[in-house]
């Protein structure tokens, strides 16, 4: 075999050997312990900060609202769908005198027209679904541009929540 072929094979052999060494050295330490992945990745993900709480945790302090809501159309909506992530709020809200919460713990109160429009504005894609027995619009659709009520006296535009109680629409 000519010299250059021998050397070429040598070079490839070195590469393959390096690769095998790399495989041993660089393999992440917890790889394969639980399956074909880094077992530590589970902990890393568990350590990420949480923002949302469980659905029922608001009831503890806001029982009235919960029971209001359970009587109305919004029964299936979770509180955090409208008010945003509330874990911190639910954990710490009762630690303040006079119930005066610092800004960082206050939740958003979605009272503007655009807030209700997220789900209720007309949208071509949100069509009626008609299966054998079910016949329903997914979410009641309102043309926000037309459904535009103003105060008869002051002529000021009203917000949705001036007429609809968001918790019991």
């Amino acid at each position: 075999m000519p010299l250059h072929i021998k050397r070429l094979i040598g070079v490839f052999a070195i590469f393959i050997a390096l690769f095998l060494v790399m495989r041993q050295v660089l393999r992440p330490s917890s790889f394969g312990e639980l399956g074909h992945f880094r077992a530590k990745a589970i902990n890393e993900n568990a350590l990420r900060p949480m923002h949302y709480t469980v659905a029922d945790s608001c009831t503890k302090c806001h029982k009235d609202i919960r029971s209001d809501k359970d009587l109305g159309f919004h029964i299936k909506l979770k509180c955090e769908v409208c008010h945003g992530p509330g874990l911190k709020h639910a954990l710490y809200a009762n630690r303040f005198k006079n119930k005066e919460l610092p800004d960082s713990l206050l939740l958003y109160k979605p009272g503007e027209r655009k807030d209700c429009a997220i789900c209720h504005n007309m949208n071509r894609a949100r069509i009626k679904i008609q299966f054998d027995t079910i016949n329903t619009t997914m979410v009641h659709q309102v043309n926000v541009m037309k459904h535009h009520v103003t105060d008869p006296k002051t002529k000021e535009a009203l917000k949705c929540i001036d007429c609809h109680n968001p918790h019991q629409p």
Partner: protein
Amino acid sequence: MTEHLQNLYEVLSKVEGYVYPNEIELNWSILIVLYPYITGLVAGAFILASLERIFKVRILKPTYGIALLTAFSFMLVATMPLVSHLGKPLRAYEIMITPHSSSAMAIFGFVYLWYLMVVLFLEIWFDYRRDMVIWANGTTGFKRFLYKLLSLWTTDISPKAVALDDRIGYIVTVIGVPSAFLLHGYVGFIFGSIKANPWWSTVLMPVIFLFSAMVSGIALVMLIYIVLSKIRKQIVDMDCLDTIAKYLFYILIIDFTLEGLDQIHRIYVAEESFEALHKLVFGKLFYSLFIYQGLMGTIVPLLTLGTLQFYKPKAKIRRAIYLILPVLVLMGIFFMRWNVVIGGQLFSKSFYGYTTFKTGLIGTEGYLMAATWLIVPFLILSFLLWLLPPWKKIETSHE
């Protein structure tokens, strides 16, 4: 917390209708468009080179070396869009050391290395070894060191050794053709096997990717050859260009037919996804699909090349056509990748909604980053052409 909500509104302004939360942002951005594009150029350029080498289309000789070096330069960069798209680029090597046979993605590293090292590197090495030995004697300094290093400090250029090189090179090319098919068919396979996405999931995908790869690779080599001749102030070999154009024409026909077949099949079968895709195609993808890919990237080149098969205008006009057409074709194939990768993520799997693709100029996934990965291969190619100029090689007949 208001900030959270603010973000939500911003995000929701991008979507129409019902979109699942994980579909709002496109996870596969412009960089993932580039990856099949660049691998396609590699496979295409290599197949053009192999036409000369194993299918003995001698007239393509002037482009053989250019095609090989082009394939090699683009191959070196092929993974970079993927790596820079990773959230943790420094972990990119892990795909190589923890392979798993059930994951097509995890096999990629090996398909890639096989093609880069065993096919492209070896073919170029055996092709240039004798010349490197000779050139090493005629140069000094760094260049001489490079030649010495690359030829592994061997000097055997006896006819017997050279004949052996040629034989091995030939065998490597023969292995290389199916490998090129594997490389690019594999890229199409990744998309085609995603059964949850009706825009991607078709068995034709690997084949379509393969033929569009050949189209783009051939167009690229054609363009580089013409531009290079201009720079070197050499006259271009018109017979060679005509032949390349002829192959481009044939393969473009096959590519067009396959893609047409795919679409006709979709229309005829009209699965439940059809309406959503129909809206997509005539809405957000209209320009990139019908105008850029279809009209400018396929129909115009097809008609022009078709006409050239029957009617040959003067060499000057043909040269101009051969300069413009590859650009159109390259653009068309780029938008083909775009339509596949981006288009496949614009509609919701609920088939009731659409999202929008926006990317900035800067940032790790911006247009500048993408442009960088398209320019770097040309820099590598310039270096390789300086180091291993195909036109200075001693004529071998590749028998």
